[in-house]
């Protein structure tokens, strides 16, 4: 199956670690993905917030290009991008008038038959648990990992069609494959404040703080995410949150691809783990010690 790759803007910018680690593990897994040529921004929250048609048209251009190039399936590692692509696809499937309007504007047809995968769907559905398990060279046993899903992977369920919207387990299953111990906590799908990071930093810090302290309380060593937006709120804002609430967190926030990479025995540097704001040194050291013992 030919697989198209829609990186989205974040993976080329603030969350470059996500792309680096993804490409690295795919290299190890011996799998290939092809970037959609000349892709454009999906419009993110801004488009659907103030211009509905734009929020469908922008993603549709990418899907139409992928379709034209003969792809049936696309991977969008960014949860926000996959959410927007799925939303556009859903609307185009269910609203013929809108579809005509959009395809007329794009001057490209789109049949709305693309299978759109978020990172977790890709790992479980396309790569497969067995293959991942077989690649685990350095099991991370003894490391406690909290999976944070956020909003965009699971909601709205009728469009996302992914996992249980209240108690998702896919990322925890992936964590378990690496040998690490999944940590249960209450705020797996609570919102981190997402796009309002820049415009309402106080709100975002309150929401993100709730999540991080709950994770900490439940004894996690680190957090994994599959969304650049979640990552920047949980990682970039963490020092500020610690200062605001005057309580240390020290929770490294890794992308799920990085955690898998570590268990595959890939050098943390190759996974760009040093690109995060919260240093993962302590956990990496712990992992090194553990794997040395094995």
């Amino acid at each position: 199956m030919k697989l198209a790759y829609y990186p989205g803007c974040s993976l080329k910018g603030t969350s470059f670690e996500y792309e680096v680690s993804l490409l690295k593990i795919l290299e190890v897994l011996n799998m290939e993905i092809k970037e959609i040529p000349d892709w454009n921004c999906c419009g993110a929250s801004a488009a659907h917030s103030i211009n509905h048609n734009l929020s469908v048209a922008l993603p549709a251009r990418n899907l139409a290009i992928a379709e034209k190039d003969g792809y049936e399936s696309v991977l969008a590692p960014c949860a926000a991008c996959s959410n927007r692509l799925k939303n556009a696809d859903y609307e185009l499937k269910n609203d013929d008038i809108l579809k005509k309007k959009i395809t007329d504007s794009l001057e490209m047809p789109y049949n709305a038959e693309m299978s759109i995968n978020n990172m977790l769907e890709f790992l479980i559905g396309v790569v497969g648990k067995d293959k991942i398990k077989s690649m685990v060279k350095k099991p991370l046993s003894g490391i406690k990992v909290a999976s944070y899903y956020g909003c965009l992977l699971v909601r709205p369920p009728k469009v996302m069609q992914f996992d249980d919207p209240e108690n998702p387990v896919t990322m925890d299953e992936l964590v378990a494959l690496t040998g690490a111990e999944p940590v249960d906590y209450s705020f797996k799908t609570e919102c981190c404040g997402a796009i309002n990071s820049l415009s309402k930093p106080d709100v975002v810090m309150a929401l993100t703080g709730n999540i991080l302290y709950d994770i900490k309380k439940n004894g996690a060593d680190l957090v994994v995410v599959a969304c650049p937006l979640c990552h920047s709120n949980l990682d970039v804002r963490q020092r500020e949150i610690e200062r605001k609430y005057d309580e240390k967190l020290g929770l490294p926030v890794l992308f799920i691809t990085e955690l898998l990479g570590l268990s595959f025995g890939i050098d943390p540097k190759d996974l760009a783990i040093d690109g995060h704001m919260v240093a993962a040194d302590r956990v990496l050291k712990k992992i090194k010690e553990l794997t040395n013992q094995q």
Partner: protein
Amino acid sequence: MKTVINEQNRRNFAAQVESMLHDKLAKCYQCGKCSAGCPVNFEMDYTPNQIIKMTELGMEDKVLSSKTIWLCVSCNTCSTRCPKGFEVTGIMDVLREIAEKKGIVSKVEKEVQMFHEVFLDNVKSNGRIFELELVGKYKLKTRHLFRDMFLAPKMLEKGKLKMHGEKIAGLNQIAKIFKDFE
């Protein structure tokens, strides 16, 4: 607090929202589950269920200039849990779009609105987001020049902020999309 209902205005506004939303306002029976689960409710001036009721009653000015519609982060918790399957998140999008088209600027939450506008400008001129430019323009516009500036050096050091943006080849297509739908 008092509202005099003008039947014609009420109908017009409710009908406009319903047609954009593809959903019926009367579906909502005001159980409040949306407001109960909303992560940003604590900052809002009206709770989401109040916004729905006010829309139904035609309280256009209050709704369109509310903080609530701009504080909503579209996390979809409300829609997901709504027992009536009402598009609560959807109505926020619709109200924002109407406010934006009418040029109503939220007095209190203008920053969120500006962020969206700057963001789309960035997409329009590059096809993709050039984060440094986005942040810069946003800061100029809001004049919050120094907010979050302490993050910049470390982000630069980590390689998170690229100094050059890319423009996509099909910019003319993007321009057409914006022309058609703006």
